[in-house]
């Protein structure tokens, strides 16, 4: 989707942010392309919001530089940068109507009142709030307020849209709906967008690229598919999606021992004898194709079974795994077909192509 030689729109270089003795960001470098939708994903305290606020100039970085559209903005105050922002609280001006909220930024541009009105109407149509335009924020639902905030942020057509956990304050249903809507609007506005979130599902469904952060450093940058299927670090593997980690030791190249059993997996160039974690996602554990000799067959007992609607999550242990346990997701039809219940003894396969390994620290 992006050609490799495109000039990045936003360049972050060696950004470090200190709060007293605490270092919130450690030497962050990052490129964001024009019109790209990037998510900063991580647990609370990982530095994602700090990075966003540094890009906005709201909390200036201690070291490092930022350029936007080829212009060095490292030390500019927020009012001299070019961005629109939506906060978790929306920060809508409570004493101004929807129309006036959206108009605030336009009025500061010194364009005529008529033009302001036209642009406001255009934006409100886009976010589907024309019929609410005379209301005050307190009279709107959370989702509607969210859209007003978005329209206000986009009113002056900024080059960069910053979204700070914009969906966290909403309930689950509205959130799902708005995810789609924000993504749609971003496409319509064709604006470079950075969204901060701690919700991996949000990041996976909305982002073109995800920046996973932890402890003030970037753990991995990649598109959602890459982040999910080839997490580079144990942190990413653990944070995004559900992952089993089985303690193991490398016996020889491409063979590791877990419990009583030897598993084939790509051990890259790790030395024999290394302690590792074998990582495999619950949905990759296969209870059906267990005849193929090459696919790491494990004899196992069902310790616990949790019904989750469209599938069951089983906790597996004993057998070959000894006291190690792991979770596996079985569709309802497989559960029925193999009549899996607590106490069932099963053979499952851990396909080596889905296994990733991480050094234990």
């Amino acid at each position, binding site marked *: 989707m992006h050609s490799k030689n495109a000039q990045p729109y936003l360049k972050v270089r060696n950004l470090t942010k200190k709060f007293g003795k605490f270092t919130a960001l450690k030497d962050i470098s990052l490129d964001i392309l024009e019109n790209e939708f990037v998510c900063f994903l991580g647990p609370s305290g990982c530095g994602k919001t700090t990075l966003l606020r540094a890009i*906005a100039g709201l909390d200036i970085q*201690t*070291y490092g530089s930022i350029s936007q559209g080829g212009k060095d903005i490292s030390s500019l*105050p927020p009012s001299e*940068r070019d961005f629109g922002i939506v906060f978790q609280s929306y920060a809508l*001006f*409570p*004493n101004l109507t929807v129309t006036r909220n959206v108009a*605030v*930024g336009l009025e500061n541009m010194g364009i005529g009142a008529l033009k302001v009105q036209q642009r406001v109407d255009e934006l409100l149509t886009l976010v589907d709030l024309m019929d609410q335009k005379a209301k005050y924020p307190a009279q709107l639902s959370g989702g509607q307020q969210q859209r007003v905030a978005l329209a206000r942020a986009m009113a002056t057509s900024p080059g960069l849209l910053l979204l700070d956990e914009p969906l966290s304050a909403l309930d689950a249903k509205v959130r799902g709906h708005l995810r789609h809507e924000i993504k749609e609007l971003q496409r319509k506005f064709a604006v470079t967008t950075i969204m901060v979130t701690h919700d991996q599902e949000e990041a996976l469904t909305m982002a073109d690229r995800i920046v996973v952060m932890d402890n003030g450093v970037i753990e991995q940058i990649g598109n959602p598919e890459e982040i999910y299927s080839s997490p580079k670090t144990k942190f990413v593997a653990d944070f995004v999606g559900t992952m089993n980690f089985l303690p193991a030791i490398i016996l020889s190249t491409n063979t590791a021992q877990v419990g009583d059993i030897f598993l084939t997996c790509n051990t890259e160039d790790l030395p024999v004898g290394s302690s590792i974690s074998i990582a495999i996602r619950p949905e990759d554990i296969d209870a059906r194709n267990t005849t193929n000799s090459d696919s790491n067959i494990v004899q196992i007992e069902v310790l616990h079974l949790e019904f989750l609607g469209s599938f069951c999550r089983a906790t597996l242990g004993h057998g070959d795994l000894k006291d190690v346990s792991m979770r596996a997701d079985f569709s309802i039809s497989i559960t029925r077909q193999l009549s899996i219940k607590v106490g069932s003894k099963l053979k499952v396969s851990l396909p080596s192509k889905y296994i990733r390994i991480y050094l234990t620290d």
Partner: protein
Amino acid sequence: MTKNIKISSIVKQKSSRDDLTMRVCMLVIGLFLAIAIILPLYTMFSKSLENKVGDFIGISNYIDYFSTPSLFQSAYNSILISVIGTIIVLLFAFVYAYALTRTQMPFKWFFKIVAVIPLLTPSMLSGISLVYWFGNQGVAKSFLMGESIFGPIGIVMGSVYWVFPHALMIIITALSITDARLYEAAAALRTSKIKTFFMVTIPNCKFGLISAGFVVFTLIFTDFGVPKVIGGSYNVLATDIYKQVIGQQNFQMGAVVAVILLTPAIAAFSVDRFVQRKQVALISASAVPYEPKKSNRLDLAMLIFCSFVAFLIICMIGMAQYAALIEFWPYNLSFTLQNYNFDLVEGGGWGAYFNSIQLSVYTALIGSIVIFFGAYLVEKGRGFSFGRNAFHAVAMIPLAVPGMALGLAYIFFFNNPNNPLSFLYGTMGILVISTITHFYTVSHLTATTALKQMDQEFESVSASLKTPFFRSFQKITVPICMPAILDISVYLFLNAMTTVSAVIFLYSANTRLASVAVLNMDDQGELAMAAAMAMMIAYTCGGVRILYAIGTSNILAKTQKWRSK
């Protein structure tokens, strides 16, 4: 890619034009505060280390002070009456507040209104009223069983009356912030009512009680009005300053007493600040407000108690009103309005009353604008955190400075012919400045609280929308904080109307004030007229309170569409 960025180069954010404008505005108000509080206090402090000719003599004035038994006695007296008064007020205010917040006692609205009455009157009013009740020709003199009201008994009674609402408000707040879940949990664990009271209620409001205790102690300790009227020959520190300065023209010794008066006030203030900070953490966002349940016995007991307190308050102001309306106590009790003919005696007459109105209006108007704007700059400014913190710290000082000390400090500072600002001395201007300064801290804190409650991101959004700060201040901040701004202006108005301590040193022949006139009339033995003038102040303050209530409800009605409940 260039990798030559030196790690050592700390990025400094450029200041926008708004940032600079805000800083300049803050410096201007900061300069005002420095002139209005720091420099005068400094001058006073150095005066206390000088002899009459102005030579530096170290602490020998202090040694003189402490070796003069009569002066030292005053300090003891001040502490004694403050401690006794504080204990009594806390007991009364706690039960009263408990009744208002934790029971289903009927007529709460009535008891709330009555409890505010003492705030509307100068503190001298209670003294005057006590003279009529228990003085040499008092109606209830026998109640004192031969003791004289002129002395510690009168001071304690008068002080308790006027500081009661101050303590009550703090304790009501403390009792209001609680979590109903704690009581449900206690009940579920079958804890008895009494045990729950000591296990949940008291620990929950202990910081409020401590805070109220210190506030009350400081108020009584530094009050001038009550001991001046009813203290007789019983000297306290506040009256000592007055006597040293006005009576004996001994400014240096006055300064010493003022500095001594300052110490416990500062201690009380520091403890209070500390306690307030602790209190914040007590209540979590998920707390559920407490709904008192009906309990016939408790409600009745509380009704009797509150009626008794309300009765005492009404007796106090009622007697002053009665005294103001009768011919010649106790010989001719026919009604008359002649006591309101203030021009008949020395002391300022009706002119003093109108001066007071003028002072109050100026203080309320200028004060609320300056203080709120100052708080806004501190709270919402970007960068320059040293300046903002310093400003905030200076804004805290006035709370710790008793009015008498402030007034005396102003004499030293502004009455110096070498001071280019000495032209202010003896004008309405200096009265306005001293009054704004005297009541700066509470107003500043009210403004800060209101500003903190606003979404912290409004400024970020405004910056991203390139809204100049004065625009968002005017269009967003001021409308949202309007209730707080009105609150501040009424607070300033009422205090300007009733205060006497700072202005007693600063008024001139042209700027006599109603509250000072009350004192002067009392000095001349025109007690009925003093009562009448005190009542004029009470009517005015009551009227302003009513106007404020109407105004606030109007604003809230007009803006209820956007103000969420």
